[in-house]
């Protein structure tokens, strides 16, 4: 027998709790979306009037007060490309090594710890490091290469950790089948594990593209602020984000600053959309 216990407080009506929860959760989701939409709309409203072919394709004039932003678009793309060309193989390779080859010893734990620490470092510190190490010590100067290397170090933890999570989410049974059928570890990784882990891995890369495109602090110290068109990876350059920062900070031209910001936002949206489309097509092939 369970003795009757006097209830201390009146029991809430489950129906009402349910309704309250739905309202509360809808509100949180709505606010999140609204904030995002507000930012994008604000930037586009101010920036879109500037967006003409001339703005995209012309050289800036008088420090960016007039003319276009072509060199900064090229600089942004070049820096991002260099950074990802270095960070992707390193990060994905490390993730594959840790998850598929190493048997989880102390070295693996040390690598993970190091990478996690790296992920928490503010980007200005990467900028300072890049300035001292790449720009001065390795005598690369302010250049696409210095900036790209610095960004590579900065996004390496993101790429490595997301790739590792993606690899870890691949069912162990796939590996077991592959090994049991006579595949080597390399064949198992390339033919079975990586294709399954690709969407997650690409997510990390896309996030990293976003961070590279939007980064200022790490770049301003390492790639410089030159407004000339960079002609090689040894040329200094200015990215869109840095350009926006300088235009706004020095009060050179707010319309041009918003125009640059609009191009930045659209670039990031485009990258995300394209990556999503590729992933959907890829997934449609296997399920």
């Amino acid at each position, binding site marked *: 027998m369970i003795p009757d216990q006097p209830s201390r407080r009146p029991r809430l009506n489950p129906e009402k709790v349910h309704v309250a929860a739905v309202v509360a959760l809808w509100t949180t989701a709505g606010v999140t979306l609204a904030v995002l939409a507000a930012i994008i709309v604000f930037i586009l409203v101010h920036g879109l009037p500037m967006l003409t072919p001339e703005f995209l394709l012309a050289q800036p004039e008088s420090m960016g007060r007039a003319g276009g932003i072509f060199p900064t678009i090229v600089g942004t793309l070049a820096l991002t490309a260099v950074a990802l060309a270095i960070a992707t193989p390193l990060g994905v390779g490390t993730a594959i090594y840790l998850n598929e080859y190493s048997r989880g010893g102390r070295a693996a734990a040390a690598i993970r710890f190091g990478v996690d620490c790296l992920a928490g470092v503010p980007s200005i510190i990467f900028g300072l490091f890049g300035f001292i190490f790449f720009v001065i010590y390795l005598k690369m100067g302010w250049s696409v290469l210095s900036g790209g290397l610095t960004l590579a170090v900065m996004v390496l933890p993101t790429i490595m950790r997301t790739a590792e999570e993606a690899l870890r989410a691949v069912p162990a*049974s796939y590996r*077991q*089948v*592959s090994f049991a059928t*006579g*595949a*080597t570890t390399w064949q198992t990784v390339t033919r079975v594990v990586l294709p399954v882990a690709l969407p997650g891995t690409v997510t990390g890369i896309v996030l990293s593209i976003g961070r590279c495109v939007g980064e200022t602090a790490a770049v301003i110290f390492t790639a410089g602020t030159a407004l000339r068109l960079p002609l090689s990876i040894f040329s200094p350059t200015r990215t869109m984000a840095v350009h926006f920062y300088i235009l706004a900070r020095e009060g050179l031209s707010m319309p041009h600053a918003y125009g640059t910001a609009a191009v930045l936002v659209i670039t990031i949206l485009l990258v995300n959309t394209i990556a999503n489309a590729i992933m959907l097509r890829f997934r449609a092939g296997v*399920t």
Partner: protein
Amino acid sequence: MELHDRREEKCKLRVENLSVFYGAVQAIKSLSLRVYPNEILGITGPSSGGKTSLLHTINRLNDRIPTYRHEGRVLLDGDDIYHPDVDVNQLRRRIGIVFDLPTPLPKTIFENVVFGLRVAGVRNRTVLQERTEQALRDAILWDEVKDRLNQPALRLSGGQQQRLSIARALAAQPEIVMLDEPCSGLDPISTLKIEQALWDLKERYTIVLVSQNVQQTSRATDRAAFLLMGELVECGPTAEMFTNPRDSRTADFLEGRFG
């Protein structure tokens, strides 16, 4: 014992005094067993009896488990499969294994079947297609999938997926096929199809069928081994073991008093 001695030279796979450990846990205790060519050997017994550990030791899948270690020998055609000169990938092609849950890889039906051939370096399109048809026919799946070989294997039903797993193991043309509870999640009709396929296959392969299911062992095997807590209790012709078990523990299990 006389029977075993007489067939000594024909023995396909011989397990000698095998003990298997995972860390401090002993999964198999000094087990000796022979598998003869073109027979279906059934291995039955309750859970954690060492059945799967035995198969994974024979296929060397346990190599990847750091805490694993074993004593004793496993001989394939008289050669120690754990000899340092043995190419483990080559060995796994000779001894195929099918797992208890259907495990289609996230690829097309065709790519699933030819996976073992591809990793072995077979590129010839004609060979791949011929082996695919043969393997799917052997697994009694061909008629159901012949028109959609390029569709994802994950769209097949559970029973079809398990027959696909069998076809994948067969396409690599192993000498021995080991099946670990291949029907555990399947309906009676799928189970029947798989048992039927095995019966037709033993002309060309040597088959080891692990099953907790006593009825399946009695229906589908030539000889049977009863494993209990890592120990081989008895092993002999299936009909003999089921009608006249030598050990009282075997009798208890077969009659459903435990397990």
